[in-house]
């Protein structure tokens, strides 16, 4: 099943990930961390299925536990001393809790990035930055293209060398190594010559002249506007709350958070909705599809 959040405008995708990853790094408040961890985890499972479940259980869970236990061993700040280690260093409640929060934050960032990798493909990235950084985006897209191209060209060169007995699979180990180096050397020369040719071809077709447009398949339509406005609204609520100090937590020397109130519950809901937005979009789309499909 295609992920419907990925079909939105690249700008929406990009702003969304920048927003959630920034919020996740800045707000260490436990409720915020739990919300982000759960929604990032569920979105990555929706995007990647069983592979994501395996990744989370095999790598992310041990990493979370490891990071949560390592922190109190190195960090002895905090006023609530639970017990002393053999070498006389205290273990404090604050450093344990901070360790858990930091581990949660780190794991959530990795999970968000795994979703980002699936949603923000390189063509979307180029589309967004092509207008602001045209030259760098061009280099970026050329590098992406060159890597598979060079892999293919190495195969061509190696076949040609094989027919005259100079492949990496022929001769003794010293000759093999020398043959390999020669193939790479041919490859380099070819890449550079080919690059100059490409550059001249670009120039003769008018690269860099004014008034040229670029092709893209993206359109900012009504659906995108609605989601964009919702996102901006939620971000405004969260930003205002951050300004009032609702989202922050102080770990050292003693833990202090804002008491829960109606306002803070509203903020939790707003943040929760922002985080699960792609999941909601996906599920709504799936239900719609099922509903339409069953009628046929």
């Amino acid at each position, binding site marked *: 099943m295609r992920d419907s959040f990925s079909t939105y405008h690249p700008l929406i995708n990009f702003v969304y990930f920048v927003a959630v990853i*920034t919020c996740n*790094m*800045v707000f*260490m408040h436990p409720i915020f961390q739990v919300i982000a961890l759960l929604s990032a985890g569920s979105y990555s499972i929706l995007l990647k299925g069983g592979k994501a479940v395996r990744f989370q259980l095999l790598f992310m869970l041990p990493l979370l536990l490891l*990071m949560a236990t*390592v*922190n109190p061993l*190195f*960090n002895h*700040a905090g006023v609530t001393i639970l017990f002393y280690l053999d070498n006389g260093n205290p273990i404090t409640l604050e450093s344990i809790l*901070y*360790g858990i929060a*930091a*581990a949660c934050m*780190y794991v959530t*960032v*990795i999970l968000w*990035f*795994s979703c*980002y*990798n699936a949603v923000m493909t*390189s063509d979307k990235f180029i589309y967004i930055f092509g207008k602001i*950084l*045209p*030259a*760098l985006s*061009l*280099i*970026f897209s*050329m*590098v*992406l293209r*060159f*890597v598979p191209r*060079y*892999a293919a060209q190495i195969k061509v060169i190696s076949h040609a060398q094989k027919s005259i007995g100079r492949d990496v699979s022929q001769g003794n180990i010293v000759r093999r190594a020398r043959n390999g*180096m020669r193939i790479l*050397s041919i490859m*380099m*020369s070819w*890449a*550079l*010559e080919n*690059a*100059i040719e*490409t*550059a*001249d071809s*670009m*120039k003769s077709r008018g*690269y*860099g002249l004014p008034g040229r447009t670029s092709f893209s398949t993206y359109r900012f339509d009504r659906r995108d506007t609605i989601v964009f406005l919702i996102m901006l609204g939620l971000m405004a609520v969260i930003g205002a709350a951050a300004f009032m100090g609702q989202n922050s937590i*102080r*770990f*050292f020397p003693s833990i202090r958070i804002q008491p829960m109130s109606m306002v803070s519950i509203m903020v939790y809901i707003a943040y929760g909705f922002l985080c699960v937005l792609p999941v909601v979009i996906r599920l709504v789309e799936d239900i719609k599809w099922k509903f339409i499909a069953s009628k046929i």
Partner: protein
Amino acid sequence: MSDQHITKPRLSRRTLFASLLILVVIPITMCIGIFVLQDRKYYFISLLILLYTMIPFAMVFEKRKPQARELIVIAVLAAIAVAGRGAFFMLPQFKPVVAIVIIAGVCFGAESGFLVGAMAGFVSNFFFGQGPWTPWQMFCFGIIGFIAGILFQKGWLKKSKLSLCIYGGVSTLLIYGGIINIGSLMMFTPHITWEGLLAVYASGFWFDMVHAIATVIFLLLLSRPMIEKLERIKAKYGLIDP
């Protein structure tokens, strides 16, 4: 461009401006982050600083409307570095990226060195996975190429194997290892302590050592043929001399 040919050993104003930014403004920003915003998140601040260091390069580069030939040579070198990183994926830390970035910096100047390094770090993570480590790698690769370019222009770094290998080994161990380890420390401590820093450096030492040895080996093997090829291309097509 023409006055640079006459006064070659002098640094151009752009290079000077960029090195001022990197060597002076960024450390000051880091100090502000550490001493003024004590309560805040180190990791987040450091990420911002890294992105912010890369902005002037991008802006300067975009502003002077680079020619197609210049763009494509940078792209080729970055692609070779990415492919090299991919080719050695089974050997952790044993990567030719730094070697290629240094050669790029020496042959095409400090700015190209930075761009090749940063671009190689960025694009290779499209193949290996993006994460909070991406800006750190981009910055480390970029700065090594940048410094290589400056040292070469100043005449302190020669195109000889010995000189390149010494710079490669030292810069990988100290600059790359030094910055990357601070990055991983900032991810999980609220206060940077000497013990924590020491522990991170000690645990990362062998990885950095392998990385440095790999750089030296690749420079030993690659530097002469690669520099020859790049010089030939430069002479044949009259590409910019840094």
